[in-house]
Every structure is written in C-alpha cells, then in structure tokens.
C-alpha cells in the first residue's frame, strides 16, 4: 500500500489549547479512511490542518509525495485535495447561485471549458440543470451537500476530506449522500478521509479507521475488526456500546 497522505507527529494549538497532540496517520492510495471520536476530540481540526486551515505548530504532512510545511499550500495542492464540510447550510456562499459556486474553482485555476464541466459535475451528483441557478436557500440540506460535493469534485482531486458530510442530514437523505459518495469514489478512484461520529456510517464507507480522544489517536483499526468487536481500547468499546442505542 503506497501512502498518499502521511501525517506524522502533528501538533496543533489554539492559543494555549492543545487541539492535536502528536497525531501520526498514514492513508493509502484509493483507500477510504475514517476518523471517529467524541465531540471536540480534534477530528475536524485534523482535516483542517491537512487542508491548511488550522495553525500547525509542528509535525510533517506529506501529500501525494509533496512535503507540506506550515500553512502555505501550493496551487497544485488544491487540485489534489478538496474538502466537504459538515454543515451544508454554512459551506455554501449564501449570496451565490450554484452556478457561481461551481464556476469559482474553475476561474481560480483558469480552467477553460467551464460550461460542460459544470453540467457534468451537477449531473454526477444527481442534480438536474434546474438546480443550476438556484441560491442555497432554495435547496434542501441534502441538495446543498450534493452541491458541496460537486464543487469539491469539479477540480478532479485525488483526495477528498469529508468532515461529517451527513451528520446534519435526515437518515433518508444521509443514505442518498452516502451512496453518492461511494459512487464518486469508485468512478474517480478517490482517496477518502472521512470524519463521523456515527460508527455505522464510518464502517459503511471506510475500510480503516482511527479513533480519537482528547486530540490523540487512541487506536487505528479496520472496519472488519470493529464489526467483530476486535478492539483494544476501552474508549472504542465505549463508543461501540453507545452507538447501539438506548438500553434500560
């Protein structure tokens, strides 16, 4: 397995708060990797650190052979790595139509054939042309999340960082989005790094996952291990019980 994303000894501080404490991870090419853990454990921060949106104080990140330092990211980096955010209500610019939002990455990177690309991207996420000129407030959460995915895909990245892409959605819509993600991954041979607090979702989509607590990775294991309860860490076990629902 060749690693496409390598993270070693990563530390992130917010002022004095140690949000990521010595995180080391490696994600293989075309692998789907999950991150679970309680709220505030640093899952989102990890993704944002990779994307250059969090203040990394030390540690190394290697992405597709390119060593990255600090917060600066090359232009090429953004064509390799894209991200989908948790809140579909907050990740789309409220004053721009879908068309504008999809056009923007193309304009930034000076990509020419905008028209067919936009149409293709919308098609791919299952939105018809009737959505093209809508504003975010004219769409449902699931539809917005599809637009966010389309926006991430339009630059044809290799790695997609997914930060709880379905947690704001209804169960039924969640299924649709999960299916969509699976499909685009297959079609494009993408590498996924996905955050979720729902073990069901993670095991559904990912082959391997890491469990995080208090800014550390406490355990890395495969989905199969989890399904058959082959876990070492207490916290992982605790999470598993909790996700089975309420019991008196």
């Amino acid at each position, binding site marked *: 397995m060749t690693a496409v994303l390598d993270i070693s000894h990563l530390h992130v501080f917010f002022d004095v708060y140690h949000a990521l404490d010595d995180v080391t991870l490696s994600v293989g090419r075309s692998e789907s990797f999950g991150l679970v853990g309680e709220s505030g454990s640093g899952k989102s921060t990890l993704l944002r650190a990779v994307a250059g949106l969090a203040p990394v104080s030390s540690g190394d990140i290697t992405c597709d052979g390119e060593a990255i330092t600090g917060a600066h990211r090359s232009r090429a980096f953004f064509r390799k790595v894209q991200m989908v955010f948790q809140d579909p209500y907050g990740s789309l610019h*409220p004053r721009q139509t879908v068309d504008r939002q999809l056009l923007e990455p193309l304009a930034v990177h000076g990509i020419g054939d905008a028209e067919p690309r936009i149409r293709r991207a919308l098609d791919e996420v299952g939105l018809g042309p009737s959505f093209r000129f*809508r504003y975010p407030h004219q769409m449902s959460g699931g539809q917005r999340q599809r637009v966010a995915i389309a926006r991430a895909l339009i630059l044809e990245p290799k790695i997609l960082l997914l930060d709880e892409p379905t947690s704001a959605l209804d169960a039924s819509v969640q299924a649709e989005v999960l299916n969509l993600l699976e499909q685009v991954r297959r079609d494009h041979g993408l590498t996924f790094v996905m955050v979720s607090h729902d073990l069901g979702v993670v095991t559904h989509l990912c082959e391997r996952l890491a469990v995080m607590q208090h800014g550390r990775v406490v355990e890395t294991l495969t989905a199969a291990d989890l399904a058959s309860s082959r876990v070492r860490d207490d916290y992982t076990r605790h999470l598993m019980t909790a996700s089975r629902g309420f019991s008196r």
Partner: protein
Amino acid sequence: MTTGFETAPVSRRDWLLSDRPTSRMQARLGRAYMIWLRFSANRLALAGLGLILALILVAIFADVLAPFDPVQGDLRNARLLPPGTGSYLLGTDDQGRDILSRLIHGSRLTLAVVGLVAVIAAPLGLLVGTVAGYAGGWVDAVLMRITDIFLAFPKLVLALAFVAALGPGIENAILAIAITSWPPYARMARAETLGVRHSDYIAAVRLMGASPFRIVLRHVMPMCLSSLIVRVTLDMAGIILTAAGLGFLGLGAQPPSPEWGAMIASGRRFILDQWWVATMPGIAILLVSLGFNLLGDGLRDALDPREAGR
C-alpha cells in the same frame, strides 16, 4: 429574452418567483423581486422611496420646474415677501429670490452631496474594513488604529478643518464629509468580515486556491454589501444634515448656490419676522432625510433575512 417570457405559459410573477430559475438573469431578478416584494409590503418604506424618487425627478427637471431664477433676485422690489405673494409660492429671501426655485435647484446639490459622499466613503470604508478583518495581524492593527484615530477625532472639527484648508465650496464639503464618514463603515465591514472569515464557505474558497485578494473582493465584500447599503442609506440623512450643518456654519456652499443648510443659516436672521425664509429649507431637509431614513429602514427589513423571516 422578452419574447421568452411573453410566450411562456407562466405569469411574469411566477417566472420571477420560480424556485428553479433557468438562467443567471432569472435567478438574479428573482432575488431582486423577492426583496422588492418584502420591501413593498412596508408602506412607510414605499413612502420613503417615493420621496427620494421625487427628489431625483425634481433635481433632473429643476430647470423646467423652477418658476424663477434661483440666483437672480429682485433686491429692491421683492425682498422678504411672505409665501403666496404674487407668484412667489414659498416667499422670497433677503436678496429677493424665489425660495421655491432655490429649493428646487438646491435638490441637485443635496443629491450630489449625498451621492458623492456615498460613492467615496462607502467603498473606502468597505475596503479598509474587509482587508483589515480578513488579513488580521498587523495589517488589521494598523488599519484599525487609523480608523480609531479618525473615529476619535471630533467629526465636525475634522470636516471644518478640511473645508477651511481646502477652501469653501460644495466639492470640498463633500470631500470633508466623506473623509469623516468612512470609519464607521470600516468598523462595520470589519466586524462582518470577522464573522464571515471563519465560515466554511470561505474555507471552501480558500481550498480552491483563490488568492486573498480574490476572496476579499468576490466573496467577503458581497456579504458586507447589504448591511453597508442599508447603513449608507440611513446615513444619507446624516450626510445631508452634516452638509447643512457646514452650510449653517458658513463653510459648505458658496453663495449664491441654493444649498439648503446655507439657506437656513441665512434665513435664521429673519426667523422672528420672516419665518418662512428659514423654515422652508428646513422642511425640505426634513422631508428628504426622512425619505432616506424610511428607505433605509425598509431596505434593512427587506435585505436582512433574519428580520424578514418573521
């Protein structure tokens, strides 16, 4: 395009209100129409709009509408005539000039002051605020220091000083007011930028590799725009009043230009016996700035989805 929607089976209203627009134009018009619907539901706001439109029309057709020459008076025969004397509907001033005609021509000055100040101060404030807010760090510190200095400086003193330095005249008054009125816009834009800066959609644009310049210009600024527009409209009244205040202190317009504030200033000498000389321009200022305020208030409700949602 016109044929497009005349042959279409849907009504124009439905076309505008459609939640599945088929073109950029339709989407944009639809949004504007929604705003208009919200706006027009507010009667006071419509009244404000009416007042402003009337002002603009009066300014455009001043030459046609004004019954007399606004600057040439009849000192000997027509001085300080009360309203309704002869054909002087609103009376005459101390140079024997028709007050109505002066008010009509003065609307041009008022409009120019308001328009130009808005055009100078608002973009300046917007630029400073968004850049400071987005860049953070020392850029923010420096820009905000400058803003604070201008904020802490007594506004009218600054304006007075500028007019005194540059010489009187409406252009300089405009510059002076513009120079004193941008800091609040910068503050506001910065606050708004700070709110927007950490949002996911800005993060998404950064992840596209867009330059900070592009982010500020195309993504942050539009977010500040609607509150800026509202604020500017509401400030228009303040601008008119400041200009009038400068005129009142003898520093705004040059005689004989019919600037309303200066008209009040020269009319106040006669307030005891010839009340109309100072009262008429006062009413004009009140009406116009009321118009802008009503308009701004209505725009705020129409543009701010938080308020309009209820």
